[in-house]
């Protein structure tokens, strides 16, 4: 299955809807995990799996890159920390200094509780918005929802999709390959 000629087959037919990919259904998370590893081993690149719960090892099987979410959360937390310290220092030492028995205006130990809270607050927002943003959500429409039995992906079924943009994609050979994986209900998904 090689060469640009094959890739052309995946090119859209101008009149009908574009093909997004082929989706195959599996019965168990173990089958899906094995199918994912074998699909990657076969040389497919644009592969995704859909499951009703996170499956351990799937990120490795699909060769997913580690997410940069932790870094985003760190930056969020540091932003909160800086914001809180700056705000309190500015208010207490610059903009509205109150002399309480000659105590220092920039009384940083008393600023710690709010600094702590804002660090957590900003980091949490970074975690949630970062996750949603990196996942490209909200996305009300996605081609895989067109797969006939896809509603079961949120119940008890496990799906693997090979996308048409994969250079190795070929409607027929891809279907045959998915059959060798023990998949059933292989369906074409339209864009």
């Amino acid at each position: 299955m090689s060469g640009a000629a094959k890739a052309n087959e995946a090119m859209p037919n101008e009149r009908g809807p574009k093909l997004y990919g082929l989706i195959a259904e599996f019965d168990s998370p173990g089958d899906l995990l094995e199918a994912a590893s074998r699909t990657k081993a076969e040389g497919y690149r644009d592969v995704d799996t859909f499951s009703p719960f996170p499956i351990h090892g799937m990120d490795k099987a699909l060769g997913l890159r580690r997410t940069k979410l932790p870094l985003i959360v760190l930056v969020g937390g540091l932003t909160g920390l800086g914001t809180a310290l700056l705000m309190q220092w500015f208010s207490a030492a610059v903009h509205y200094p109150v002399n309480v028995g000659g105590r220092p205006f920039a009384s940083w130990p008393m600023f710690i509780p709010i600094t702590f809270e804002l660090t957590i607050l900003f980091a949490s927002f970074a975690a949630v918005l970062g996750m949603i943003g990196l996942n490209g959500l909200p996305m009300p429409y996605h081609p895989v929802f067109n797969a006939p039995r896809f509603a079961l992906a949120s119940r008890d079924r496990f799906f693997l999709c090979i996308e048409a943009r994969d250079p190795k994609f070929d409607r027929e050979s891809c279907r045959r390959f998915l059959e060798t994986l023990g998949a059933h209900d292989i369906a074409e998904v339209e864009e």
Partner: protein
Amino acid sequence: MSRLPPIDDPRSTEILEPGHTFASVTDKISAIVLAKRTPRFWWVGFLFAFSVTLWLFAAIGYLLLKGIGIWGVDVPIGWGFAIVNFVWWIGIGHAGTLISAILLLLHQEWRTSINRFAEAMTLFAVAQAGLFPLLHLGRPWLAYWLIPYPNTMALWPQFRSPLVWDVFAVSTYATVSLLFWYVGLIPDLATLRDRAKRKFFQILYGMGALGWRGSAAHWHRYEVAYLLLAGLATPLVVSVHTVVSFDFTIGIIPGWHATIFPPYFVAGAIFDGFAMVLTLAIPLRAVYGLEGFITLRHLQNMAKIMLATGLIVAYGYMIEAFMGWYSGNVFEKYTVWNRITGPYRHYYWALIACNILTPQLLWFKRIRSTPWILWCIAMVVNAGMWLERFVIVVTSLHRDFLPSSWGMYAGTFWDWSTFIGTIGFFIALIFLFIRFLPMISIFEMRTLVPEADVHGEPQPDPGRIEGEV
């Protein structure tokens, strides 16, 4: 999945009844939400709770009309029910975060079937808690003055004040709890979207699900985000009741100015919170037939946590009394003695009976595994922890340094109306929650089904905390 060996008896009840499949778990939990007919007991319970809520609104309306003079607060007891109820409600919330965050980090898989509604309980309890300081302001419509914003008065909140810390701690806690809860709900909302029969609910749940499709890459980021949120919520929950205790300890009133307060408040919060989780879980599992998900194992574990935190609370009382005497300070000594023998001694001894003596029954396995007794003990603890806050707030204030400024305090009709009203409001929100959202995390329950274990290795694997952190 890591299947931790049971801590105590290897034959103890499973955390998920055997025989469940991905489909059966999904169907059973989502059916409660998607059922067309609302059960009769739901209507009865909800309408009763809602009428109590309306009474709360009436009490608040009258308060706004007349001012806080309708409450029993006066000099020297300026805090009264408002602060007692605030601390009580906020403490109840803590168990939800403990279950969802700390037990997640500790790989306690049994948390899975109780975390969702415990988090809901947190949110609703914090909402009730938040009402009290606002109403107690006297001029609640000026509450926004507590928030730092550029204003024409060129004023800033006093950032060195524990009361301002409280504003930040509680509002951060409420926000982070909401985020955590919502993130946990996203995959389940997708399940409801896919299973709802009626168009309206498909759209409604679909909007909440944000187009979640269970993609592997999404799950990967999701798990990292969930874990990071748990890691952030853990110190947060400890900080919140610590800051609440600062409201007292930073003051110099005898009986408040104590270093034991932060840990003792946090333990008390968890103690009371677990009591409230049991108060809700035991009837819920019975009426919805969820004994297969919330098993006796869960009840027993929660009972054990209650026993452990109850002992910490008992230690707190002991140290409080001891330090009152050991300090050699005449005011501290008198406050302790006044609590034990003074005009409020009934409250004090009732709290000792509720919070120290009653939980000792939990040493017995028979009691831990009998739901109705456990429910009664939980109710006693709920009452006991309210008494504890009453004793701390009122007995310290009513007789402080100058005998000429001593006084007595009692809640008025409107105090009780507001307090009972918030209980009704809380229960009404819980009823709405169990009708419209899955009260048990469906996707996490699926991971407890044996087939979810794709490796089949006997040794516990790193589990949810997979290398990314």
